[in-house]
């Protein structure tokens, strides 16, 4: 997994609450059996004026000029600023895959849906929860060329005028993200504990182990 340490990047504002995973990546793209290549279809129904289908070449599709990611000043944005309950809906990991493939490294919102939040960490994408007032303040001070610096080790966001905002993240997730560690390899280091658990559990619930 890609590690996340410090990122300084342009911020794109997506001023909507309850952005769901069907909006982030519509279901027709979930038919892919690959993990890469979802970036061109990120927010497909909002970004384009026509109906997108898998494998479609997006270079000549008609763009919705009003959609924030189509506006030239946000080209190259790696930080997404948005409203509460971002990523609600399905468990599709295609949502963080699409955000990552598009080039986003971090998302700032007052809250995230639980499954989406969890999925981000598996893909080197950092979801940051700030108080609704802090998010609102960032929306208000956002001007053309607005950049933020996110320092994961320090758990800090630095604004262009030098203000710092602290954020919370649990230690295990932070450690794994900072080092880009593979969760499965780490868990398999505890294989003995898993086997002991199975032996002990089989005594309590033998019906689960009888076939």
């Amino acid at each position, binding site marked *: 997994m890609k590690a996340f340490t410090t990122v300084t990047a342009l911020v794109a504002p997506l*001023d*909507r*609450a*309850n952005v*769901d995973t*069907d*909006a982030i990546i*519509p*279901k*027709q793209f*979930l*038919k*892919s*059996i*690959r*993990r890469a290549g979802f970036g061109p279809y990120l927010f497909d*129904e909002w970004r384009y004026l026509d*109906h997108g289908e*898998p*494998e479609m070449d997006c270079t000549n599709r008609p763009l919705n000029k009003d959609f924030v990611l189509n506006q030239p000043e946000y080209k190259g944005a790696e930080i997404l600023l948005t*409203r*509460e*309950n971002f990523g*609600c*809906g*399905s*468990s*599709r*990991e295609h949502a*963080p895959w699409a955000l990552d493939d598009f080039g986003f490294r971090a998302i700032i919102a007052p*809250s*995230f*849906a*639980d*499954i989406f939040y*969890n*999925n981000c960490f*598996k*893909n080197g994408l950092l979801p940051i929860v700030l108080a609704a007032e802090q998010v609102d303040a960032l929306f208000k001070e956002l001007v053309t060329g607005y950049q933020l610096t996110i320092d994961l080790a320090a758990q800090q966001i630095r604004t262009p005028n030098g203000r710092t905002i602290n954020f919370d993240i*649990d*230690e*295990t*997730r932070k450690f794994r993200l900072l080092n880009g560690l593979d*969760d*499965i390899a780490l*868990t*398999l280091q*505890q*294989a003995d*504990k*898993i086997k002991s*658990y199975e032996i002990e*559990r089989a005594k*309590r*619930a*033998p*019906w*689960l182990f*009888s*076939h």
Partner: protein
Amino acid sequence: MSGKTLYDKLWDDHVVHTEDDGSSLLYIDRHLVHEVTSPQAFEGLRLAGRKPWLQTRNLAVADHNVPTTDRAKGIADPVSRLQVETLDKNCAEFGITEFGMADVRQGIVHVVGPEQGATLPGMTIVCGDSHTSTHGASGALAFGIGTSEVEHVLATQCLVQKKAKNLLIKVNGKTGVGVTAKDIVLAIIGKIGTAGGNGYTIEFAGEAIRDLSMEGRMTVCNMAIEAGARAGLVAVDDVTIDYYRDRPYSPKGNDWFMAERAWQHLHSDADAKFDKIIEFDAASIKPQVTWGTSPELVVAVNENVPDPALETDLVKQQSMKRALAYMDLKPGLAITDIAVDKVFIGSCTNSRIEDLRAAAVVAKGKKVADNIKLALVVPGSGLIKLQAESEGLDKIFTDAGFEWRDPGCSMCLAMNADRLSEGERCASTSNRNFEGRQGYGGRTHLVSPAMAAAAAIAGHFVDITTWEG
């Protein structure tokens, strides 16, 4: 020391190890697999040279992409076909049981699990699908996961998790006639919002929940995720035990007696402490109809489309305006004046035998209205389809002008050929009314099976509690 909640008990029972920061390695008893969220996970195993930790703990079924007509011809869409074939190949390669498309046990993964007794009380159950919360109806801890976690469970039979908080939702008293599990859960979401359960596991309790069949409890837990909670729970009682007796994967003989005894403890202790408790009065819940593009945008059928101008929260007001524009509705319009183009009865929320019976009662001897372009009934599994046919429900539906289809997710998310066209409006028994969910530009109103069937007959929404057909 205060007692434990049901969630506390299930959690404690499955912890392999806890780190200093509170994150735990949680043992997973049952992993359900479907074609959409698993190919990249199997690919990950292959690349790392890993094998499933315990093959028998996994059960696979294709549901999202499967056609609901002409099964014998296979899947027409080559992209969908490749995904289903990839599941077949992966299951064969890794030694995982799969109910293939031609198997009578095939169906929607969350319908098949309980029906087979593959998901049991007291288990931890995961699947790469957010509606895994359904299985919590049996007093199991069940939640949806992403593809990285699918791979993690396959390889280790465990997940790294942090414990959620405890939320108790009590629905007191009895519901009125014609008010179903779907109406209860929509009313709950309407009150607490789609983020109301974020960070919580919800236990549903109270007389109205106890009065529900297992099917009804599954409908309620299914939509816990629509309230933001990864998992919903209902305590075990006789209804639960009776449901699981003699299912194909249920414990047998002495195992059954031991399991039954252990399951009796699967309820919250009387002195258990919840982080939050919300109470509802069942008698005040009316049949519900969503009007917007989020399940929380819902009203009772005898109400009108709300006016965003009356909403003081500006972010919410903006969402309401956007939803009304997408849904092409005006504030003040009576819900019963909304005409629909298509009707969908199915999905992991409402495709069980009880749902089909409720819809058939409404449809019996009637005809689908002229303005309805398509009224679909899609059973949740091949076995439910057979059961319904043995009761003559298929005949009731087809006589009334409904189409009777093969099992799958179908028009809930339109990954197969069943979908809305741009601008079409649908009365749907599914779980999500998001923009484009049932087809690009399609408009979804979530309702119960009886309400959907009545909308098909009347051509517009009607209040099932007063409607005389």
